């Protein structure tokens, strides 16, 4: 008893001393408590005038008739200190749903005793780069610092094969090609890994894979999304995204073109196509729908998508009232909306594919390449023209009258030839453009629409004066010289001083590289969101992104070549850090729906490499569209594609917003009706059933089995090849044995029941090789199908 007492005294003394020294971090420690426990009544939206506001120093130090919530002159007497410790009449009150915990009370106490000063929420302060004092990769500097402080170590480096697979899946969405893998493993140069990374960054698959994340964030879909959910002409936009990522268009321009490409001086075709971003909102043409209501709704959707995708907060609360936690006024929501309220399209889509305004654009990547090539030729012709004309002029200048007359009568052969070339180019352009397709774009009205605050977000309750386009004050000021239109909005977003955009993008790049973000709530950088695991690292990277002219490839290269990325992903047995918030192990997670399908197509050599074009329709159970569609819809009947279009990369799978492909949604792909910046990763029995029994999965297994059997008849080699393809490594003994065992069991079974083998081998459109023994083929196919469904193939690790 006595001993316990002494211990308590000792601890009180110890903690008391420590607390006295430790400065409370307002933004990281205090503000989350205030926001979560106090702002419900004392926050930015407090309506009662006599209620103290705790969201600012000014509010908290207001004189409340003789006393103050925070009294800067008599800190110890601050009312907050009294009330949070008052047993009779505490704050938050007895009836409050959320009460303070002991540690929260402690934080508030220390904070007030240290002066009770306020600071801005971290995400609203522009990031700055801290010095790293390190010659290595700065990421590792920040990560190692914290890991060391916890008294543990980084994991050892992952096996090279595992690492190659991880890098390839992260960058391109495919495992490394066996040849590429072999070259890398045999490459003994110290920068072999960096060389592999560079190859991967240069692969056209890179753009396809990375584009997907952006398309989720901005809710890309091939249909209108509401009511009839009819077809919409917008896929050239998707192809533009892939193209600009592959060409490494700087991210600030990537954003600017999408927001205001049409407002740039003499915009290029690509810049106009990019404005499809503005047109990505779900739309309707339902009878009885009110145009004014949908004018508002379409714009709500744009504001909130912009918020989630670039500002790290949906802003949706401020649509109806001033934000409860974040410093966003309802007026500011509508000022932001005013930027979008001037586009010329009708608020109802008319159920039309061409829902104007639209332009004609290349219909796929090949057509785009062709068109660009012709443009290059045209440039050449024009260049030659200048030369020929200049030569002719010079000759004319120098010539005598006699000679000049001769020149006139004998047409210049060079000019004639040039004209011929020009005619050919003109014809090629015309022919190329004939194959162009429709894509929706943004166009500004000459006379802006009036925007007013809508009371409670109701379209028919506008109040107050018309609002000019403006941006939320908390996120930095609007650039002085920028126009008050979408282009100006893009300037604001990409300005050096913007506190959010570079951080939000960096966080998501980190998330798709490391499996989780530095900020674990990528859609909420506000007061209720999570703090970054490594604030200094996030800021360093965000500034680095801007310093490097918003270079995405460079940023991803920096991340995947870090020691942090290259760690083994093994978890430590003590479970010190189950959520990997210290990043002391490499990434490991289940791959996305698209990647799971793509790996199967790729390994089985079914994959059709064609890039771009209208969405493709792989098999799906009959009647899914019909069961939910209006009889008048033009997406009522799902007609699966035939031939190679069955086997295109999943990025190109037709995205009907009310019913995306079931193998996509089954593995957590979003519907693309609203912005999604983080997919969930679920494991359900229906997934397991589909992995082994869905038609295309079976076909992949079948064709992979066939490939393996054609390449080798020897069981050992077959299994080696299977593992090299899917796991980038050779199988372990136990794995090999298990595979062989299943093969033998199945072969026996199929030998006895040849009809079963035939039935199995006829699933899916692609024909089987009749030269191969049906029982062996069916058995190997089942093995392949099974390994494809295992974690070895389905996870990054």
């Amino acid at each position, binding site marked *: 008893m006595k001993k316990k007492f002494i211990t308590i005294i000792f601890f009180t003394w110890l903690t008391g001393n420590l607390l006295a020294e430790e400065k409370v971090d307002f933004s990281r420690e205090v503000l989350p408590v205030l926001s979560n426990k106090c702002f419900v009544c004392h926050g930015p939206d407090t309506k009662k005038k006599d209620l103290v506001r705790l969201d600012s120093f000014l509010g908290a130090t207001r004189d409340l008739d003789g006393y103050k919530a925070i009294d800067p002159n008599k800190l110890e007497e601050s009312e907050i200190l009294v009330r949070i410790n008052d047993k009779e009449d505490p704050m938050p009150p007895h009836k409050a749903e959320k009460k303070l915990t002991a540690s929260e009370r402690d934080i508030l106490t220390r904070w007030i005793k240290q002066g009770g000063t306020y600071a801005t929420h971290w995400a609203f302060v522009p990031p700055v780069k801290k010095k790293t004092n390190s010659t290595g990769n700065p990421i590792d500097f920040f990560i190692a610092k914290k890991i060391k402080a916890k008294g543990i170590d980084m994991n050892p480096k992952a096996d090279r094969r595992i690492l190659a697979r991880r890098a390839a899946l992260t960058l391109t969405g495919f495992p490394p090609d066996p040849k590429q893998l072999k070259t890398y493993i045999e490459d003994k140069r110290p920068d072999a890994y960096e060389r592999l990374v560079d190859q991967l960054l240069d692969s056209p698959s890179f753009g396809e894979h990375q584009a997907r994340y952006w398309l989720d964030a901005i809710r890309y879909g091939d249909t209108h999304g509401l009511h009839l959910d009819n077809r919409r002409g917008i896929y050239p936009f998707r192809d533009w995204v892939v193209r600009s990522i592959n060409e490494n268009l700087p991210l600030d321009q990537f954003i600017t073109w999408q927001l205001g490409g049409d407002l740039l001086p003499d915009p290029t075709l690509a810049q106009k196509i990019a404005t499809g971003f503005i047109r990505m909102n779900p739309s309707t043409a339902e009878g009885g729908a009110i145009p004014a209501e949908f004018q508002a709704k379409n714009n709500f959707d744009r504001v909130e998508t912009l918020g989630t995708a670039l500002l790290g907060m949906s802003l949706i609360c401020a649509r109806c009232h001033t934000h409860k936690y974040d410093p966003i006024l309802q007026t500011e929501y509508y000022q932001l909306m005013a930027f979008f309220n001037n586009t010329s399209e009708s608020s109802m889509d008319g159920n039309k594919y061409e829902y104007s305004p639209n332009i004609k654009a290349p219909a796929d990547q090949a057509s785009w390449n062709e068109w660009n090539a012709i443009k290059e030729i045209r440039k050449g012709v024009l260049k030659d023209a200048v030369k020929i004309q200049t030569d002719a002029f010079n000759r004319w200048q120098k010539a005598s009258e006699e000679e000049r007359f001769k020149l006139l009568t004998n047409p210049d052969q060079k000019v004639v030839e040039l004209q011929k070339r020009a005619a050919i180019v003109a014809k090629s352009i015309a022919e190329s453009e004939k194959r162009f397709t429709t894509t929706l774009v943004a166009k500004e009205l000459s006379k802006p629409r009036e925007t007013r605050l809508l009371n409670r977000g109701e379209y028919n309750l506008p109040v107050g004066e018309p609002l000019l386009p403006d941006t939320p004050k908390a996120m930095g000021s609007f650039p002085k010289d920028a126009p008050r239109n979408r282009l100006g909005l893009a300037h604001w977003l990409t300005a050096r001083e913007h506190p959010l955009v570079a951080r939000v993008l960096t966080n998501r790049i980190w998330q798709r590289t490391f499996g989780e973000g530095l900020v674990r*709530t990528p859609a*909420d950088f506000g007061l*209720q*969101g999570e703090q970054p695991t490594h604030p200094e690292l996030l800021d360093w990277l965000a500034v680095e992104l801007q310093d490097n002219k918003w270079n995405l490839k460079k940023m991803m290269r920096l991340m995947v070549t870090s020691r942090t990325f290259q760690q*083994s*992903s*093994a*978890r430590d*047995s003590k*479970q010190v850090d*189950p*959520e990997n918030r210290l990043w002391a192990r490499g990434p*490991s*997670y*289940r791959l996305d729906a698209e990647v799971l399908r793509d790996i199967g197509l790729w390994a089985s050599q079914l994959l059709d490499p064609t890039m771009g074009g209208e969405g493709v329709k792989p098999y799906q*159970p009959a*009647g899914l569209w*019909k*069961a*939910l*569609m209006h009889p008048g819809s033009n997406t009522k009947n799902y007609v699966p594609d035939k031939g190679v279009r069955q086997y295109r990369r999943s990025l190109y799978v037709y995205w009907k917003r*009310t*019913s995306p492909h*079931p193998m996509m*949604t089954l593995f957590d792909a979003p519907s693309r009706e609203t912005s999604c910046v983080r997919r*969930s990763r*679920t*494991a*359900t*029995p*229906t*997934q*397991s*059933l*589909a992995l*082994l*029994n*869905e038609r295309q999965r*079976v076909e992949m297994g079948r064709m992979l089995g066939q490939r393996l059997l054609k390449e080798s008849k020897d069981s050992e080699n077959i299994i080696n090849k299977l593992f090299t393809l899917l796991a980038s490594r050779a199988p372990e003994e*136990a*794995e090999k044995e*298990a*595979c062989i*065992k*299943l093969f033998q*069991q*199945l072969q026996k079974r199929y030998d006895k029941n040849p009809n*079963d083998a035939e*039935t199995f081998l006829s699933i899916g459109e692609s024909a089987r090789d009749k030269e191969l023994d049906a029982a062996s083929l069916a058995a190997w196919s*089942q*093995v392949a*199908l*099974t*390994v494809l*469904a*295992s*974690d*070895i193939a389905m*996870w990054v*690790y």
Partner: protein
Amino acid sequence: MNPENSQSLTRRQVLQSAPLGFGGLALSSILHKNSRARSPLKAQSPPLHQRAKRVIFLFMKGGPSHMDTFDYKPILQRDHGKPLPFDKPKVTFAKTGNLLASPWEFKPYGQCGHLVSELFPNVGRHVDDLCFLHSVHGTNSAHGGALLKLHTGSDNFVRPSMGSWISYGLGTENENLPSFITICPTLAHGGVQNWSAGFLPAHHQGSPIGNASITASKARVRHIQNNRWTSGQQIKQLNLIHKLNQEHRQDLNEHNPELEDRIRSFELAFRMQTTMPEAQDISGESKATRKLYGLENSVTEDFGHQCLMARRFAERGVRFIQVTHSDQDVQWDQHGNLRKGHAKKAAQVDWPIAGLLTDLKTRGLLEDTLVIWGGEFGRTPTVQGPKMDGRDHNPHGFTIWMAGGGVKGGYRHGSTDEYGYYAQEKPLHIHDFHATLLALLGIDHEQLTFRHAGRDFRLTDVHGKIASDIFA
């Protein structure tokens, strides 16, 4: 050693010693770092007094008319053709005219003497077991919004379905079947969102069997069968997957809860391949039972089949079973053609529902199984359509009834006004309905929360009053 570790070690030892590596192992999860070491679907005892252990929800899609079925309105009969003497709601789905009397006769049933229309003569015989909630009301007058409101408590945000909340709160009594099954659900009007787990862990989502456009006898869980394995043979593949995953786990991610989740999902999938066909196989049911559910009558066969499946799932311990009366037709949505439409729909369900109630009672299941009947809204007492033979959507007052599972039989809770337009006495909002439903299952609706996107969510949002007067 912390409990999580000891749990996973034992589990691995068990798995290694199991002859097939699979079986009825109750694999526990460490889904979240703070969760207790248990299977997330394992049955849990609820905090409050539990009156019902499971739910069968008979969902009548389209909005059956309460004035024409269970909520008799003599004044409406009297004032046929006259204008409604008070204001219609500000927002209506479509225009309606004057009052329309019910074209059906009502007569008293049972000891309680509750009046039921001639549309439901068979359900009528059970009125002494039924608890009528006459004052249910919502806000959304469109099918999509109203369906979502009824199923998830929210008509404009994606939220977990009530079946998922209940699975999350109570787990399942049978680890070989999903805890939430929805038979022939409609894909329209919110579709999958009506049985989705939203932000709750995915294993609480409803497992659909077929959909509204598939006849019940052909409805299956997608991909559960293939034409190349006899039942149970896929275990060979699962053994290999298990082996590979286990190797993989030992190599790299020994303690990764997500990997364990995957193993569990494969196991349940495998077990479902045997348990589902067995549960759905009604060939062993007696002739009398088949007759009881109307399987021998082409009109009642389809819905009867669904009801019979529901009983079989209830017997096997599935927590929440939804049966949807729907097709690609307009279902109960008679804006016109009320007489024919409602008569046809009622004829399809009346006999099977009565059969289900009888069967549950005979088997002693009704005591702890809560049966719920209702649509997403009711219909207006005012007329609609050129032939003066229709009614519009009415979310402002309608009837849902419950039976079994600890509710008073032959009891009426609340009422609508004398015409049936608005909930009047003891109004019961959809949130209150949900709060009451959870209370019957022994769950405090204010305590059943899930933290998501920075706040704690509930099925009842910040609302919900329990109608405890209906408790037996």
